[in-house]
């Protein structure tokens, strides 16, 4: 909790100040008003002394006591001002969310109009109507605050009001007062509170300024601003007379802001809303700064903690379960099989040995990718299939050397086109990557610069890496686009990315990658955002690159159908590891890992019996933070034994089946046996927990 609220020592101190101020609001006047009002003609305008630390005023009243007493009026007036501003602002700001489109735009325009009027002008205008004095100042400043508050509320409410859960509540028939009170206001409260605190401290400052000028609080009442004006003309004689109230104003302002921060954080963390788009892996241009988008795309899996514990419970019982991630108990007897060696001839397009990816997390480091070894042979089409969060994207990004801190990548070997990546640094490494590897992500728009025409983007790499001149590079780009069956390629080069359809863009990105004639294209869910017709075009484009240029393809997808039909060899990932590797032709009929088999059975296809329930896999996949040091599938596996819950099964070659590997203590002995998916009945028990 402490971390989530960001309670640094400085902040704790400010909170203590705030608490003290609040105590003064309550207790200040009763305790010190006697001293504050006591006229002492013997000590008029006295300097600082032990009896009067801040000195006295023209009537000999103790200034320290007056500062303490003034806390109540100063803070209450500031609060009243902010409250008035926000009451008006929030009420008006919520209107657009409730009104029909026409009235909505009238209100929105009005708010914008008022926001455009300088606050000072508005305050002066109101002040001339309501008159000077404390009441006048509060009303004038409060009204002046209202437009900003209204605009903020309007923006926040519009974003929350557009949220799907609000639409969902409307559909079930929830009426608007409840929509506002239960769904919209609570979800916009945090930023409003923050803003309210800031407005309060601003109001404090403004009110003090007005009182200082004699336009605010009128004698015999006094606030800090009024005291400041008393003290200021003696600044050089008795500094504390002016510094005292001045410090009080500044300190109170800062403390109120800190209080607002903490309160807002408390409200916000009350509902851990990790709004994440599951199926939307971020697309990244190879040159883009990676950390941020990758983190956003991947933060996705941050765990639903409570449900997690249910699924992880059996695994947690295993002795080694809470060992540090990556601290896997030594595999007994069998040595993990390295990725099958590439056949003699040109070097493998990609070879990684024991790739692990970790990143710091709240509870120590998590290791979402563990000991992945894979080879993509020259001109080979390899697929990685697995569920969301299984580590596919991280594996791909790490293989393409695109991960940056906070991700820590470890490999025993990492070769691209036969060249060890880590032997090189800086430019040499970038050149190797630039020449031998292209990356295609789910969202082509993020790989293309929206401001530049395609010509520039499609020729840049070839000019740099293949030493072509602009004319040759343009020729090559047109050639590429034509090969990818893009209509009117010459004209396309003159267009901006937004002028193309999704499928065209994705093909443009592939063309961009192919202009350097790389040995390998890594494509992470390249068709997930596209419809079937376009999906086919994009896969055909990749296929053509493979057939005609001998470009190897590493295709990543959660769609087992796409993988099975496109690839020659398939790697199945679960819980950050490769659990099975097999030729695509064997996938449907001859898989031996329980997870692969259950996955195949759980997805309906065109032959599925419509009269029977679908086989399902109980529970849900583990998140990166829940990965056990034993078999990650054990909690959901129909064949799990004690051993499975205690030890990590190593990825070993499958006897008598060249090119096949499996990580399971009890692989299905007979490939023709029925898939070991749990019966529909069991699944319910599991999910209910």
């Amino acid at each position: 909790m402490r971390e989530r609220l960001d309670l640094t020592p400085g902040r704790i101190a400010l909170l203590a100040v705030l608490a003290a101020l609040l105590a003064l609001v309550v207790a200040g006047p009763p305790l010190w008003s006697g001293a504050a009002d006591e006229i002492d003609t013997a000590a008029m305008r006295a300097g600082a002394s032990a009896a009067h630390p801040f000195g006295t005023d023209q009537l000999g009243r103790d200034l320290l006591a007056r500062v303490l007493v003034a806390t109540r009026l100063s803070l209450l007036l500031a609060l009243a001002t902010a409250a008035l501003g926000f009451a008006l602002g929030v009420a008006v700001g919520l209107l657009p969310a409730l009104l029909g489109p026409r009235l909505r735009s009238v209100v929105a325009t009005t708010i914008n109009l008022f926001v455009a009027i300088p606050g000072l002008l508005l305050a002066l205008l109101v002040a001339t109507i309501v008159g000077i004095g404390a009441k006048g100042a509060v009303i004038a400043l409060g009204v002046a605050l209202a437009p900003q508050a209204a605009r903020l509320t309007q923006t926040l409410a519009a974003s929350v009001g557009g949220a799907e859960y609000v639409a969902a509540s409307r559909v079930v028939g929830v009426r608007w007062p409840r929509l506002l009170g239960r769904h919209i206001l609570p979800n916009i409260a945090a930023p409003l509170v923050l803003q309210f605190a800031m407005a309060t401290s601003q109001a404090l400052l403004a009110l003090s300024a007005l009182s200082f000028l004699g336009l605010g609080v009128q004698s015999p009442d006094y606030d800090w601003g009024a005291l400041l004006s008393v003290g200021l003309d003696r600044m050089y004689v008795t500094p504390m007379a002016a510094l005292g109230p001045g410090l009080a104003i500044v300190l109170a302002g800062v403390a109120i802001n800190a209080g607002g921060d903490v309160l807002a954080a408390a409200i916000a963390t009350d509902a851990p809303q990790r709004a994440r788009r599951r199926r939307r892996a971020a697309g990244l241009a190879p040159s883009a700064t990676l950390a941020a988008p990758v983190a956003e795309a991947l933060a996705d899996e941050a765990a639903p903690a409570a449900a997690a514990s249910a699924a992880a419970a059996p695994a947690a019982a295993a002795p080694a379960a809470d060992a540090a991630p990556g601290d896997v108990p030594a595999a007994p007897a069998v040595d993990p099989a390295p990725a099958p060696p590439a056949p003699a001839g040109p070097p493998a397009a990609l070879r990684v040995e024991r790739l692990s990816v970790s990143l710091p997390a709240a509870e120590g480091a998590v290791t979402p990718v563990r000991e992945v070894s894979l080879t993509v042979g020259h001109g080979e089409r390899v697929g990685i299939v697995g569920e969301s969060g299984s580590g596919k994207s991280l594996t791909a990004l790490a293989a393409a050397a695109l991960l940056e801190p906070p991700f820590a990548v470890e490999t025993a070997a990492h070769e691209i086109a036969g060249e060890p990546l880590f032997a090189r640094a800086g430019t040499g490494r970038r050149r190797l990557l630039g020449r031998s590897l292209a990356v295609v992500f789910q969202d082509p728009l993020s790989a293309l610069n929206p401001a530049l025409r395609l010509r520039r983007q499609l020729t840049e790499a070839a000019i740099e890496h293949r030493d072509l001149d602009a004319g040759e590079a343009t020729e090559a780009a047109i050639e590429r686009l034509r090969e990818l069956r893009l209509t009117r390629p010459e004209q396309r080069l003159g267009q901006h990315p937004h002028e193309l359809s999704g499928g065209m863009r994705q093909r443009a990105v592939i063309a961009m990658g192919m202009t350097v004639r790389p040995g390998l294209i890594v494509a992470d869910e390249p068709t997930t955002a596209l419809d079937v017709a376009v999906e086919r075009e994009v896969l055909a484009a990749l296929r053509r690159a493979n057939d005609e240029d001998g470009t190897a393809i590493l295709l990543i997808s959660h769609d087992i159908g796409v993988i099975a039909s496109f690839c020659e060899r398939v790697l199945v990932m679960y819980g950050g590891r490769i659990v099975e590797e097999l030729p695509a032709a064997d996938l449907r009929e001859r898989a031996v890992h329980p997870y692969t088999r259950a996955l195949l059975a759980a997805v309906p296809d065109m032959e599925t019996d419509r009269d029977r329930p679908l086989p399902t896999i109980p529970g849900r996949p583990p998140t990166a933070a829940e990965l056990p040091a034993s078999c990650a599938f054990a909690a959901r596996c129909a064949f799990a034994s004690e051993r499975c819950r205690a030890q990590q099964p190593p990825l070993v070659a499958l006897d008598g089946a060249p090119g096949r590997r499996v990580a399971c203590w009890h692989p299905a002995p007979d490939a023709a046996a029925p898939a070991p998916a749990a019966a529909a009945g069991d699944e319910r028990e599991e999910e209910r927990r």
Partner: protein
Amino acid sequence: MSGLAVRGLRVQVGSGRNAHVAVDGVDLDVPAGTVVGLVGESGSGKSTLARATVGLVAPVAGRIEYDGEDFAGARGRRLRRLRRRVQLVFQDPRASLDPRMTVGETLAEAATAHRRLGRAARAAEVRRLLEQVQLDPAHAASRPASLSGGQRQRVSLARALAVRPDLIVADEPTAALDVSVQGAVLNLLRDLREQSGLSLLVISHDMAIVRYVSDRVAVMRGGRIVEEGEAAALMASPRNDYTRLLLDAAAGG
């Protein structure tokens, strides 16, 4: 006719320069007690059609008839009457559940939107709903963030059921779920239909899913229905090229 009948529906989304006719003259029937599957590519207008059937977007033309009464452009009281009968389950249960409300609060809210229920009756109703979607009643106290994707989608379904509608429109009910849990949600949809005679309009881009759950299938492309028919017949002999393409893709071609 009893059930949903959409006639000549035209829905425009966006405004000004970005205006776009997403649903362009659609006729579609969901007779009482049947499951109709609606397939089509992304952007073909499926979701817009779904939102129009519960009045979340107003059509520019056409009729949305339920049991013979036209609800196109309905507002206020009439719209509430429509929504008592037709409910929508959204694609992404993560986005469609208020992160601040517990499962019990979400369900109670829906259950009391059209009926008055006392405290005890409300709790009993939440319990019944959770059981109906095969979730442990103890989940009433959970917040969405602590549920798995499959569990969340069950909660969304339970919320729709809370209104006791005759028809549920499920927009890509499994698209946001992991493949290993989508089967459980599909099984649940089938069970519900068998137990309670609910009609369903199930929207998906996946022909295999639609085939598994539906009696009838409609294929949508570019805002129009390009083919419609009894599920088995349509799959066996598709007449439209696009339908054929979808079938090929589903067959793993």
